[in-house]
């Protein structure tokens, strides 16, 4: 079977590729011998092979040259050489999209597909269907129907598969062949069976009943082909999911019975289908898990891989179901296929105990460099989950992560590691210094701007509070010298935080700032100038306002605003305050629109990123459109919606409370769930318990069935008694009912008044306070000062744990927990909670609450604010 190649090819040595230096033009030139008579099958075959080889290498053929070669090739149909003929079919398929007028060969192919030579028939059908369009398909429909039920398997399979390809293009024609496909499905040949099933499903997939009937038939009669079984399992599990049938359905029984099939392929497909089903219980999973366990010790790598990959998925949701396989998974750790080993280890990390962590980590590190990025990310995620589960193991993890950080890898991989390290630092104060050191090392040689800025921000936040902050300065200043603008700007911000917090470092920081003021980038220069001016004042309050807790202001206002600050900063503090009243603007109101996108990761890493208007902005706009509410000033706070009715009642009403400086607006969103009623003039009458005064009602004119509408009430807050922050309103829905036709919605002319009692609505202290995040609470505490500080001690008898107490306080006061103090460390008897907020009217409020656990919780609350009344209000409401 050794071919005679051109002399040149033979000379080029045995190891070379005879096709290597093929020239497209030379090959096309050679193709002229197709026209020679008599046909030399061997030479022609070789030239066709070259053409297909070139196409396969991705060589581009122009339409003209392709058409020319194609037409020359059609002449080769005269030869009876089998291989040559088959290569002609291949050429037709390869050139179908490149050459013009390929339909010229239709009749030759039709002849071959209906001829006596079985070897030609299958491939001829496939080539023919490749060049046929819908109209032509009708012409050969008769032959296709015959071919589908042909007794020669290759012919039948070819016809079925080609029909499947044609379904996309000519669904209506192929649909008519269902009966033939049905007949083919009962063929003895396993591939014919598989292809027939596939075609039948594609034709019927939109008809759930037909699919279910088909499933029923085949699951009963049983099939020979393992491929067909896999297909059946997929169809069954899809149907189960769509119909949300319970796991007692016969379809589930069928899938489960496939776990005992003699083909591994089928068993695996069934196990995988069960594992992927939503809401599977551990008991239903058990048989699937036990076959996967058997596969773990298979000699076939693909089977082991498939099994452990599926077990890994089970472990995410049901770790306990996989623990039985731990021993088998242990054996896979040393598997020569690294993908299998990685999956085995990450699965074990999810299911194993704390004691095995060290050993597993050692195992992974031995081959982490050999696996692909996809798996590395999987490993990092597993570690991240593990750190949360076993916080005591952080030193092992940190070590491991730092090694991974040094290795090569893509952005996704590096980001996963950095995120993981940051979360460890935040969870475990002991690991802070090692973690920061690793990150410093990483940014020395980091090509990803986003990661560098993120780390610099973290350094600025955490670095100054470590025992030896000076060692980080070098790393940060190196960034200023070496990196791109975004990183330089972030580095300047970080430097400022060191200068503001560490007096002994301040002189050196100022020198460094001076250098930054000569930077070539505007943003860097502006930041440096701004911080320089603030730092030179050496006033704690200024530092706190503009360096630690000014994150919102740094990025939000335009540069002009900052320039203004620089000018005025030499004046007294009060004046600066006025210029920059932005700092007391609550968190959610901060406009984020002008932010430079490249700095977004620095500034908003703590904020939820909200491009566009916030929920409150939308409400503000809506309220401003109502004439009665003009002149109330800007909206201070909008609460979450409160339901005033049960979920399934005739009318559904929920209330949103909007707080203004001296007023409150209650927005009632009402929905009418009765389709035979139209409500008009809908309003909610409110009876206050305290000195609150209802000024206006704005009714909703019409409330048709299922279209929500809003009515409003305007309430004035008592001015003579500012401490009356809480109040209870009893509410009644009042409206005019008109009966209407449920179908047309046409109302009767007459109506009658009616009312509907709603649940009471409460206004609490939380409605008067807006959350503000102070990244550096201690600095904010000093800034507000102790002028109006009050302290009181309470006993919370009904509360049993510190967690519960913390949760209660936060939700009661509606303030923002700072410094992650909302998380109570385990096994501690005391805790300090820091809360920050802004009271209605723009006064900062800070609360420090010390909690001690002993027979209930004892709480010592210290409140500071810029206004004495506010302090009193808070303490009064807590008590």
């Amino acid at each position, binding site marked *: *079977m050794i071919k005679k190649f051109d002399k040149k090819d033979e000379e080029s040595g045995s190891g070379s590729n005879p096709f290597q230096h093929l020239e497209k033009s030379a090959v096309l030139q050679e193709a002229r011998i197709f026209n020679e008579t008599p046909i030399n099958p061997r030479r022609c075959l070789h030239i066709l092979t070259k053409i297909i080889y070139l196409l*396969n290498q991705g060589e581009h053929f122009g339409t003209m040259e392709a058409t020319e070669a194609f037409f020359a090739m059609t*002449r080769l149909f005269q030869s*009876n050489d089998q291989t040559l003929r088959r290569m002609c079919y291949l050429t037709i398929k390869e050139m179908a999209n490149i050459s013009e007028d390929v339909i010229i060969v239709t009749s*030759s192919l039709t002849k071959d597909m209906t001829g006596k030579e079985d070897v030609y028939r299958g491939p001829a059908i496939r080539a023919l269907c490749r060049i046929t369009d819908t109209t032509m398909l009708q012409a050969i429909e008769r032959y296709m129907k015959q071919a589908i039920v042909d007794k020669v398997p290759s012919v039948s399979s070819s016809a079925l598969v*080609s029909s499947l390809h044609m379904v996309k293009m000519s669904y209506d024609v192929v649909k008519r062949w269902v009966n033939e496909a049905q007949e083919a499905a009962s063929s003895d040949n396993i591939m014919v069976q598989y292809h027939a099933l596939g075609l039948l499903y*594609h034709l019927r997939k939109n008809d759930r009943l037909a699919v279910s009937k088909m499933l029923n038939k085949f699951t009963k009669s049983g099939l020979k082909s393992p491929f067909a079984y896999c297909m059946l399992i997929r169809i069954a599990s899809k149907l189960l999911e769509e119909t949300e049938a319970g796991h007692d359905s016969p379809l589930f029984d069928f899938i489960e019975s496939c776990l005992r099939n003699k083909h591994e392929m089928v068993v*695996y497909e069934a196990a995988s289908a069960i594992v992927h089903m939503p809401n599977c219980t551990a008991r239903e999973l058990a048989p699937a898990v036990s076959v996967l366990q058997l596969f773990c010790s298979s000699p076939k790598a693909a089977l082991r891989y498939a099994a452990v990959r599926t077990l890994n998925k089970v472990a995410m949701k049901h770790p306990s179901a996989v623990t039985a396989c731990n021993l088998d998974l242990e054996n896979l750790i040393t598997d020569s296929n690294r993908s299998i080993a990685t999956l085995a280890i990450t699965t074990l990390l999810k299911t194993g105990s704390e004691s095995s962590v060290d050993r597993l980590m050692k195992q992974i590190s031995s081959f982490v460099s050999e696996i692909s990025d996809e798996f590395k990310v999987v490993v990092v995620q597993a570690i991240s989950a593990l750190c949360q589960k076993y916080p005591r193991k952080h030193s092992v993890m940190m070590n491991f992560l730092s090694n991974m950080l040094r290795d090569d890898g893509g952005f996704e991989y590096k980001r996963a590691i950095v995120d993981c390290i940051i979360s460890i630092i935040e969870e475990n104060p002991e690991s802070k210094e090692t973690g920061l050191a690793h990150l410093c090392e990483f940014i020395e040689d980091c090509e990803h701007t986003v990661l560098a800025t993120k780390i610099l921000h973290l350094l600025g936040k955490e670095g100054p509070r470590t025992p030896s902050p000076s060692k980080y300065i070098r790393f940060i200043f190196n960034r200023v010298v070496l990196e791109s603008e975004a990183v330089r700007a972030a580095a300047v911000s970080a430097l400022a935080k060191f200068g503001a917090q560490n007096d002994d470092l301040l002189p050196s920081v100022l020198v460094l700032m001076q250098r930054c003021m000569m930077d070539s980038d505007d943003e860097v220069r502006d930041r440096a100038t701004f911080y320089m001016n603030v730092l030179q004042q050496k006033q704690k309050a200024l530092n706190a306002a503009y360096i630690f807790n000014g994150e919102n202001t740094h990025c939000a206002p335009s540069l002009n605003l900052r320039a203004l600050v620089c000018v005025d900063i030499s004046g007294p503090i009060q004046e600066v305050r006025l210029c920059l009243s932005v700092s007391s603007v609550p968190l959610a109101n901060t406009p984020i629109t002008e932010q430079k996108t490249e700095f977004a990761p620095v500034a908003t890493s703590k904020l939820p990123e909200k491009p566009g208007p916030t929920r409150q902005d939308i409400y503000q706009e809506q309220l401003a459109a109502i004439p009665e509410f003009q002149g109330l000033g800007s909206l201070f706070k909008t609460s979450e919606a409160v339901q005033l009715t049960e979920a399934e009642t005739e009318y559904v009403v929920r209330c949103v409370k909007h707080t203004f400086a001296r007023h409150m607006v209650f927005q009632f969103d009402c929905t009418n769930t009765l389709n035979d009623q139209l409500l008009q003039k809908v309003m909610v009458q409110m009876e206050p318990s305290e000195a609150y005064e209802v000024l206006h009602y704005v009714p909703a004119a019409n409330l048709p069935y299922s279209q929500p509408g809003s009515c409003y009430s305007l309430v004035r807050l008592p001015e003579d008694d500012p401490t009356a922050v809480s109040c209870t309103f009893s509410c009644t829905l009042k409206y005019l009912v008109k009966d209407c036709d449920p179908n047309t919605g046409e109302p009767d002319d007459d109506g009658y008044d009616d009312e509907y009692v709603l649940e009471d609505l409460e206004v609490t202290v939380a409605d008067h306070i807006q959350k503000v995040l102070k990244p550096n609470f201690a600095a904010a505490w000093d800034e507000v000062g102790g002028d109006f500080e009050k302290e009181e001690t309470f006993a919370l008898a009904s509360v049993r744990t510190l967690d519960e107490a913390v949760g209660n306080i936060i939700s009661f006061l509606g303030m923002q927990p700072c410094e992650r103090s909302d998380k109570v460390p385990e096994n501690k008897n005391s805790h300090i909670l820091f809360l920050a907020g802004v009271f209605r009217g723009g006064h900062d409020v800070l609360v420090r609450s010390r909690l001690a656990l002993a027979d209930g919780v004892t709480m010592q609350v210290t409140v500071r604010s810029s206004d004495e009344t506010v302090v009193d209000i808070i303490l009064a409401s807590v008590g």
Partner: protein
Amino acid sequence: MDTVTLEPSLYTVKAVLILDNDGERLYAKYYDGTYPSVKEQKAFEKNIFSKTHRTDSEIALLEGLTVVYKSNIDLFFYVIGSSHENELMLMAVLNCLFDSLSQMLRKNVERRALLENMEGLFLAVDEIVDGGVILESDPQQVVHRVALRGEDVPYSEQTVTQVRKTALITSFISTYYTAQCGICSIALLTFHSPET
């Protein structure tokens, strides 16, 4: 756990590749639009090769795709499918391809022998996978269908009528080709209809 159940489908194989021991493409067939351009395909092949040529393990997950592979002397065979695909099905395709070639090349599965039988390879892959659907998984059947035999039918065995018809058709085709005329094409099609 992703609960994305894939649409049950016969389209199983995304690509079949054969590379040599320098990672050069000897054969590549992509069945869907995952890698539409030649440039993307070559980049993918480079990535695959760099990740697999050193290790002798059969399966890997790359760029979100499941890759099953097998190497022999200086050849690397790959079958690629979706990461949700049944790995054993892909393995069945790979084994069928390898065993078919092994028989066709008389157990001499290496680069030189393969290059000398490229048409055999082309035909075999065509019999195993058609447009992404597994057409046949039994190597015996594949070898039988590829049937590399009867190459040497001498020209003299063609009958005189065949030769005469050949000449006639040739003249028709050339007329058609130069004129590019629709009427001629109809004439040709009717002439060529399978009455013999």
